[in-house]
């Protein structure tokens, strides 16, 4: 009996702890970042920013889309100062909530890597590539341009991730470079050769490595994680499409400052730091991404940006995510 009361008492105690924990609110002087990029990738460089500037940073990690939805729900009460997103789609979804970024920061970056309205700035670049299984194929077997994969000989051998933001960025690039009709034909053409649909890039690279599929359309840097963990023998490599085109477009991960931020000064210092040589060198050397500023040497395993025949697209043209989604639905690629 006594034990029972003790048990009940300890339950109530726990509840009391929960309630008392409610009282502690976050302090406002630290910089709050909502990061759709994972801690594995950006955690170290954010720590360096804190050390270099003495500004305390709190980071909430999550997926780009879920954090974007969170900020939208939070509205004016959002505690976030900065939204650091995986892809331009996520930044575009919040563009109306961003404060303008000073030209001194924007000016450091090529126009194709930043918001045309000065709302957000690209921080690292990622190339769209074709990843292929080296046991079944060599580069010579691969078409010059992404259109070539609509050939019936690729039946059942392709993996793609149409729900992924980067993939959709590529389709938007197609619409800009090829026009609606040809893009539609490509989507239908690929659909006709029965591609396997993956939820995102990582499982595509894993499936190519396992030989489940022969080729896939991911971003370039996922491969390097597999090479790191499984060694050089991992039987997959990146192929940068010889003729360039939308299949070799460079997309950015970037960040914007929220209009509601009470700490815009520190937020701007954060963006400046991320574009500094130290940070850009970190992205180019540690996360296998492409720098968005001049004068940074990329990782030796990476094909330098200058050697990729990537199309020049104005960021302003890349903003129409809605149109891309409409096309993906019309063609039945997405439900």
């Amino acid at each position: 009996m006594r034990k029972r009361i003790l048990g009940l008492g300890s339950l109530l105690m726990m509840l009391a702890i929960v309630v008392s924990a409610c009282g502690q609110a976050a302090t406002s002087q630290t910089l709050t970042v909502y990061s759709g990029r994972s801690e594995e990738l950006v955690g170290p460089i954010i720590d360096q920013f804190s050390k270099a500037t003495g500004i305390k940073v709190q980071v909430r990690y999550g997926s780009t889309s879920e954090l974007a939805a969170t900020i939208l729900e939070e509205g004016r009460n959002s505690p976030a100062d900065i939204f650091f997103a995986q892809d331009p789609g996520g930044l575009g979804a919040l563009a109306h909530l961003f404060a303008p970024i000073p030209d001194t920061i924007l000016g450091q970056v090529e126009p194709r890597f930043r918001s045309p309205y000065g709302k957000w700035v690209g921080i690292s670049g990622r190339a769209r590539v074709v990843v292929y299984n080296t046991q079944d194929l060599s580069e010579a077997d691969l078409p010059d341009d992404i259109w070539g994969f609509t050939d019936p000989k690729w039946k059942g051998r392709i993996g793609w991730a149409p729900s992924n933001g980067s993939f959709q960025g590529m389709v938007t690039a197609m619409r800009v470079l090829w026009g609606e009709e040809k893009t539609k034909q490509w989507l239908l053409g690929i659909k006709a050769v029965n591609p396997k649909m993956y939820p995102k890039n990582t499982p595509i690279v894993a499936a190519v490595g396992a030989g489940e599929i022969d080729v896939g359309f991911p971003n370039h840097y996922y491969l390097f994680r597999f090479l790191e963990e499984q060694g050089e023998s991992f039987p997959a490599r990146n192929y940068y499409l010889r003729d360039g085109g939308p299949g070799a477009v460079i997309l950015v991960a970037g960040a914007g400052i929220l209009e509601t931020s009470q700490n815009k000064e520190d937020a701007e210092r954060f963006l400046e730091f991320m574009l500094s040589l130290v940070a850009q060198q970190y992205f180019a050397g540690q996360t296998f991404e492409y720098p968005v500023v001049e004068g940074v040497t990329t990782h030796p395993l990476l094909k330098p940006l200058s050697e990729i025949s990537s199309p020049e697209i104005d960021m302003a043209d890349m903003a129409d995510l809605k149109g891309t989604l409409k096309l993906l639905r019309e063609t039945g690629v997405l439900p």
Partner: protein
Amino acid sequence: MPAVLIAVVVSLPLAYLLLRSLGAGGETWDLLFRSRTLDILGRTVVLVIAVTVVSVAISLPLAWLINRTDLPFRRVWLVLTMLPLVIPSYVAGLVIVTALGPRGMLQQVLAAPFGVERLPEIYGFPGAMLAIFLVSYPYVLLTLHASMRGLDPSLEEASRSLGHGPWDTFRRITLPQLRPAIAAGGLLVALYTLKDFGAVSLLRYETFTWAIYLQYQTSFDRMAAAALSLVLVVVAVIILVTEVRTRGRSQYHRSTVGVARPPACTRLGRWRWPALGFCAMIVLVALIMPISVLSYWLVRGVSAGEPLNVVWSSALNSGYVSGLAAAATVVAALPVAILAVRYSGRISALLERVSYVGFALPGIVIALALVFFGANYATPIYQTMGLLILAYVIMFLPQAVGPIRSSLLQVSRRVEEAARSLGRSPLQVLATVTLPLVRPGILAGAALVFLTTMKELPATLILSPIGFKTLATSIWSATSEGFFARAAVPALLLILVSSVPMALLVMRERRGQS
């Protein structure tokens, strides 16, 4: 009434969905009324039925072996077979792809001796079903386990003494007595299947929840996602009504007065080995397979020079929030269950059913609902531990209500009335009579909530105090970038850390019985 308060809190997500759906444009409704939607709905229903039926079919014999026979190491089997619940469904998905994929580990093993080039496709229905089954059958197992412990053996004895064989007795006496538990456990499995995203997306089986996530992921369209979620609520309501029909209206409590006795134990005899084989098979697929794949990732990564980081603070955080969530959820579930059983009527039944809505919705929907209410109307507690625990309670309440309700049905109202007539106050009766008698249900409920909180992701990511890391968030962070070796450590730790309280719980159970 505390139950009313709980019902109000639990319906917050529903209010949020209605509010957001109102903002949905015509395009959304076009999206909804297309043949593709019906198609996806059909696929979802097929998956829900299949996973539920298989879970019951496997859990029933398993629970019987563990509770009612002289199977060796029964408690060990119980702990081992309930642990798969702690594995996040996307990890189960990754494990199945790695192990059983067309060119997975199994194929590699079979390649040399048998020349198997490629295994049959695991993607689609079979893989999705297997993955969800593996992470959800413990719902039925634990609910049944709690219920079997409270069965009145005198009914079975009467049946046997009237000349019915053991099989006949099981079919005609025991099984009907277990109906509420089967229904409650099956309900949890069905609703879980409805809301799973991780496994179905990795194994490429398009369900309704997958379509909802797609709205968030691709178009950042909260309105369309909310409208689709409401359809999910409708499906959940249909499932809930079905469950009420299957659970029946009979009495389930002890028929006679007297001291509770443990039921007779069936001697397995020569059936012992097949029985052990059956348990071993389940543990092999549901626990050994994931652990092997995780260990394989770990070894592969470490041998390629990956650093090995064991983050004990995350493990501690996981255990801490899960313990709090389990305690808070049980406390919230008690009034709901007591009301539903002791004061059964339309309103109390409605209250109990409403508590299931939070469980049937994808985690991201619950999380966003609380973001909306928290950030705008409860700013001081937004993104604090308190709100996070509240989110867990909303999501996991039915996991405690189900088992407690099934246990409470086995307690005769007369016992409580006797205590009242002897001068105890209602609260005293609750503390000294009712609670001890429904203990199996409380423990099962707490275990279910604990295990599912350990792996919970969307609400933890969005609503936790900033910088708060758990094992589940570490696993997700690593796998989302393809760092499988780095994900393996917290994933193995997740299973290990969860096994300790589960083992303690099962040991306590024995003391309670003697």
